[in-house]
């Protein structure tokens, strides 16, 4: 397949949305790139390759996902050199992907990744000893304070930041020994707040022991709260 002569203007820029769940949450962002390139290759779709000495599939991701998070709203952008029905792209890819990564939707790129401002996460805190009510009380108490200061590791060293302005709790569901939190947090290239910063602070501040945390990214939004498309 020789794709080099096709002008960029005639290519079809598509956005592929996918889930990453269960065992797949342990694939790092770097490894997901390679995993997707190989899946695209197996799928046999007319994908555009970069030119040059070492051609590779042109692929970009909207918003990296932390290692260990599940997600229902991942997306990647790529270019097709000939038209293929979106349903077919989806089916081909699902046949080529490992079982815990599923394509949900294929469409044209409606906006650019830089419009992303927030993301919705579902966080579950589970314990054998601490009740859901206690977990909720601690969380409420933490949010009743003026600031939520946490240590953020950066390349230049650690620094203290207040993450309270970047977080907005949507709902809390209390179970016997667990809580589910729906949280909106700043996301995107300008400011990306990892929900683990909040849960680690909660666990540390109130000396909560044997808490298991799991995080699922549910959706990604622009500044107006519309879903990224």
């Amino acid at each position, binding site marked *: *397949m*020789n794709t080099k002569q096709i002008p960029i203007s005639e290519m079809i820029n598509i956005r592929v949305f996918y889930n990453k769940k*269960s*065992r*797949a949450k*342990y*694939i*790092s962002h770097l*490894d*997901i790139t*390679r*995993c997707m*390139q*190989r*899946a*695209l*290759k*197996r799928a*046999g779709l007319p994908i555009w*390759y970069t030119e040059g000495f*070492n*051609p*590779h599939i042109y692929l970009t991701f909207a918003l990296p996902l932390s*290692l*260990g998070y599940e997600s229902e709203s991942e997306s990647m952008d790529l270019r097709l050199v000939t038209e293929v029905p979106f349903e077919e792209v989806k089916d081909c890819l699902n046949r*080529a*992907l*490992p*079982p*815990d990564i599923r394509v949900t939707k294929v469409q044209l790129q409606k906006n650019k990744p830089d419009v992303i401002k927030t993301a919705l996460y579902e966080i579950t805190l589970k314990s054998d000893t601490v009740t859901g009510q206690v977990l909720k009380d601690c969380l409420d108490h933490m949010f009743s304070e003026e600031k939520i200061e946490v240590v953020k590791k950066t390349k230049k060293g650690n620094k203290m930041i207040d993450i309270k302005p970047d977080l907005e709790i949507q709902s809390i569901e209390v179970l016997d020994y667990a809580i589910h939190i729906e949280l909106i947090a700043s996301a995107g290239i300008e400011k990306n707040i990892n929900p683990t910063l909040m849960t680690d602070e909660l666990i540390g501040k109130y000396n909560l022991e044997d808490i*298991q945390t*799991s995080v699922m990214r549910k959706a990604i939004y622009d500044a107006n709260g519309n879903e990224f498309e």
Partner: protein
Amino acid sequence: MADSLKDKLDQVLLNVQKPARYIGGELNSVIKDKQDVDIRFAFCFPDTYEVGMSHLGMKILYSLLNDRDDVWCERVFAPWLDFEEQMKKHNIPLYGLESLEPLSEFDIIGFTLQYELSFTNILNMLKLGNVPLLCSERKGLKNLVVAGGPCACNPEPLVDFIDLFMLGEGEEVMHELMDLYKASVKANDTKETFLQKASQIGGVYVPSLYDVTYNEDGTIKEIIAKENAPLPVQKRIIKDFDSVYYPEKFIVPFIGTVHDRAIVEVLRGCIRGCRFCQAGFLYRPFREKNSDTLIKNGKSLCETTGYEEISLSSLSTSDYSQLESLLTEFIDYTNDNQVNLTLPSLRVDNFSEELLEKIASVRKSGLTFAPEAGTQRLRDVINKNVLESDVLNSCTIAFAGGYTSVKLYFMLGLPTETLDDIKGIIELAQKVVNAYYEMENRPKGKGVQVTVSVSTFVPKPFTPFQYEPQDTLEMIDEKQKHLVQSVTSKKINVKYHDSKTSVLEAVFARGDRRLGKVMLKAYQDGCYFDSWDECFHYGKWMKAFEECGIDPAFYANRKRSYEEVLPWSHLDYGVSERFLQNEHQKAVASTTTKNCRLQCSACGANKLLGGACFEY
């Protein structure tokens, strides 16, 4: 299930490096319903995920076993130290990557023996899997522990721990063993009955059916077979290599591994007969696949994996008889499909212009040569048919093609080696440096870098050097010093490895049954992952030898006579002892032996095929 292994793993996996290696779920990994199979087989590689997942033999047998409806084969690797710590803390047993169920649940636990320094990892993996270490502690048919691979050619140090060994190539014997196991379970056989029946399968060695007695000087007096067990046990070989089973798919790991690519297996065996090289004798006779078969294998793998790279696997790809047609077709395929073909250094003397041009367009791995010895005399001793002019010519061509660094591999401690041979290593490296500067249009302002990489020679069973002592540590240290002092130029960079691991390798390569207790003791003292520098504890090993009253020098540094009963003398790999002795004498006299394609030297391996190896 609240406390299933998966839940426990979710608690700890984010605390360890590269969690993806402990969770499975990769593309093309095989999930079955355990209710639907008769045999659950744990294929264990006694090293890390990255090393094990690169290994071709494992890929072949994994697919071969899973193609059977009655077997579910899973993969198990040695957990790295950080994860092992978490496993212990959270009571997580070692488990199969497909089902995430404990090793102790498996019917058959199979290890592949690729290098001696991985032996202690076997003990650690059994232990972490809650499987009793000693054969005598495992009573029934469940948790049968089996092993195969090159080190099974002298499995004696492992006989306390492993119930049976498969000698030679596994593609056929594995099926026969599965059929027998299934029948034995159905018949309610005891372990003893099963093992007795298994010993009748060609290539299966059941050590408990052999008694070993010793002379007063510690050497072996006699090895006696019991209960009808065969003597000798002959290795298995695939006669029709072109039609041997080959997987259509490889598992595609999420994380990078040592060799993360599609592989086709071009040939088995080697025509060369380098006298230090165990693989060259173990895998005789030479057999190859048709280039059509290889193209078919390669295309299938590329399509099912999406790999961007494919390589040719063999002991010496230059000796493949259909190389020209294979490369012509392969390069066209890989160019059209955005796949890189990785080629080893090839002898290309009689290729067409057109093919040479095509090869030039393929990215090559780094420029490496393995002269193995520094002087022609010593190269004749080891039967390494490489001339100084071969090395210099190839380097000159490569320099002209833009290369500015070369890596040369050598061994220290080869039989008959003198200080002159060691100096010869540096002299050869210097000639390579000179060849660069003698080149008229060499790139301006650019220097050349020649890396001399030296390993310590380890005498191995089934080679002509199996009778030879290994140099002592002191001698090797002395030689390493001499080597470094001989360096004449800043362009030459010498690298050598700590020789202490080679001592251990030498002991276990030619060890006998008495070493089992040393291994157990050292393991209990914390020795495993011995091939990883940060985990190797020479002192602890020496202490274990001392406590067991065993002198490692007896195994490593002693010259054996031709009359001695060697620990592996009841095993038959095709190559006759008379041939090895003859080769040994020719070595001492620096006489070379022609390669198998030019002339048969009557090594005896042709009996495995039932005819001549080549038509002359």
